């Protein structure tokens, strides 16, 4: 099943022929500018002075990717995304914004923008995602929001690595907008287990679907990942490293033609407090507890942020 075809009719039919990027906003010439980074990745780009100019250029010329002005808000950019899709349904949009609330980031994900990043922006990272957007297949690119609020987000996605990278980027941004946020390293654990679900559970087949949920409670952060595979027994995977022997699995992987690796579960289990697989092994929970001191700190941060208003959410 291809989630992108379900919600974006014409996506595959109207794939832009140009491998070009349209950047909205004034041209920047600093050493670490997006333009410089895109040039280093051989991504051809043009500029639009603003939204109206961008739409005019899109009517005349096919672009594969549009990058919004980092000085306009997510809400403004999402309104523009609707207009862009009327003109060029297949174009991928990278939303850059000076700040954002959890709800705005969720809305960007619902609107299926390719990526949404808020300040402080990392030009190198954005250029890297832009290159991925240019190279990506038009099909199997879907991430569908099933339900979402700031404490519970449920996602369905086609199982490919680019989707995993996009979803992880979303959760990293989302995490930064939360007053009571999970530790940064939990995103490493999430990405590792998501990669396993794609590679081993869905056999790298992008037509297969994964389900992902992220839940925030008062005392814990939880990720849930479900893949369509046959499952496995976590204590019986010879191609994965064990804490008892960190290198024995290398030979197993060599003989079976697998790429080097096998440290994903070991790494994830060293980060989260609990890594719980279902009986079959195709569903997993990653749980990170917050200790009392962290909860006190979060309560303090939350009260400070609530009293400071939205400005504190802006970077």
């Amino acid at each position: 099943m291809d989630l992108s075809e379900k919600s974006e009719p014409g996506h595959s039919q109207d794939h832009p022929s140009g491998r070009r990027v349209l950047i909205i906003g004034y041209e920047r010439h600093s050493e670490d500018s997006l333009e410089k980074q895109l040039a280093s990745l051989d991504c051809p780009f043009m500029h639009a002075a603003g939204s109206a100019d961008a739409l005019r250029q899109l009517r005349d010329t096919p672009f594969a990717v549009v990058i919004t002005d980092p000085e306009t808000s997510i809400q403004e950019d999402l309104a523009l995304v609707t207009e862009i899709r009327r003109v060029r349904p297949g174009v991928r949009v990278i939303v850059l914004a000076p700040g954002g609330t959890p709800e705005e980031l969720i809305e960007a994900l619902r609107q299926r923008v390719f990526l949404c990043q808020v300040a402080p922006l990392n030009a190198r990272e954005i250029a890297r995602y832009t290159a991925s957007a240019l190279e990506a297949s038009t099909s199997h690119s879907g991430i569908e929001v099933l339900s979402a609020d700031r404490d519970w987000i449920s996602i369905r996605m086609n199982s490919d690595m680019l989707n995993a990278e996009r979803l992880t980027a979303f959760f990293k941004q989302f995490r930064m907008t939360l007053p009571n946020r999970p530790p940064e390293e939990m995103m490493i654990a999430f990405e590792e287990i998501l990669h396993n679900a794609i590679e081993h559970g869905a056999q790298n087949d992008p037509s297969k679907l994964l389900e992902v949920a992220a839940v925030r409670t008062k005392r814990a952060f939880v990720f849930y990942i479900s893949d369509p595979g046959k499952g496995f027994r976590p204590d019986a995977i010879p191609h994965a490293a064990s804490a008892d022997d960190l290198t024995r699995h290398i030979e197993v992987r060599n003989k079976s033609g697998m790429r080097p690796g096998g440290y994903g579960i070991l790494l994830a289990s060293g980060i989260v407090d609990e890594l719980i697989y279902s009986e079959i092994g195709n569903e997993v929970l990653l749980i990170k507890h917050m200790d009392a001191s962290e909860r006190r700190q979060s309560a303090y941060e939350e009260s400070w942020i609530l009293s400071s208003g939205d400005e504190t959410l802006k970077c």
Partner: protein
Amino acid sequence: MSLKMRTREANGIVIIDLSGQITLGEASASVRDEVRDQTSHGSRKILLNLADVTYIDSAGLGELTAAFMSVKNRGGELKLLNLTKRVRDVMQITKLYTVFDVHDDERKAIASFAS
């Protein structure tokens, strides 16, 4: 590609300077290819300088470990230099720092091969 490499030599030691992210895909495979290329040309003493590696995932760890074993099986040595905090954290979580000989000073790292 999110990883750049530059290879140089000092006192008979091949030093590979890595910059960027060693993650699943092309980037981590390029480390494997470079180490394989060096060993195929007879190099047996290899120092990976990770000073500018901003991130490594489990696939990257797998590449480093596979390269380490490959060089070791050929009678050589592969050592690590200048781990950034993020790389060091990941190495400590997985306890892989017990597998590698890790250095913070290039001169001392080079000298350690001779001994």
